[in-house]
């Protein structure tokens, strides 16, 4: 399935470069809510704000994971499990997620999202593609 890149406005009035933002329904035990998440092949983890996950009733496992940004700024995030739905309900995955301590752009990362789906980008065409793998992977 193909999705369009989107552009965010910057504080100086210009537009950011087009981004692969995917509308994902984040399903917790108590609530579900739709969030635009960045499809980010540079992030090892799938990550959402911790308090957002708590508002959905998500329980954290107690496992913690230290993550760092591109600039080596370090944060301690907490591990949980959620279900993510997108593509009008066509795709659904139960996945590990990190609760980030503060506001952040939610991201879909390598470890779970890219490990689960075939993802490709056509930045020139301003679109990206997500599909089920054709063959079962064997590790």
């Amino acid at each position, binding site marked *: 399935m193909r999705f369009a890149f989107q*552009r965010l*406005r*910057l*504080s100086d009035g210009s537009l950011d470069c087009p981004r692969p*933002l995917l509308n994902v329904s984040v399903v917790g035990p108590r609530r*579900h*809510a739709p969030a635009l998440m960045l499809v980010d092949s540079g992030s090892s983890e799938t990550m959402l*704000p911790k*308090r957002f996950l708590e508002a959905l009733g998500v329980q954290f496992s107690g496992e913690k994971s230290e993550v760092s940004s591109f600039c080596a700024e370090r944060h301690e995030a907490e591990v949980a499990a959620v279900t993510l739905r997108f*593509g009008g309900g066509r795709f659904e995955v139960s996945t590990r997620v990190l609760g980030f301590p503060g506001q952040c752009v939610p991201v879909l990362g390598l470890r779970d999202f890219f490990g689960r789906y075939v993802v490709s980008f056509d930045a020139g065409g301003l679109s990206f593609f997500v599909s089920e793998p054709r063959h079962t992977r064997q590790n």
Partner: protein
Amino acid sequence: MSKRSDHEEFFEQAFPSAEDQAPYIGKVVAFDNRTGAIRDSADTFEELVDRHTDESLDGLALLYIPGVPFIA
């Protein structure tokens, strides 16, 4: 959703225009999936979840507009 071929379905998703985003930089907005119109805003995702029910969030999408180019 439109289907161009068996292998290429396009999922159509409205998005707020640059002009509509302008007053909400640094905020999280709830916008209409079909039109891109912004219906609500708050400082955080959890404020919007607490303010709405699952039903009132149906047809909306939550978007953080950081206002600066970001790396991830």
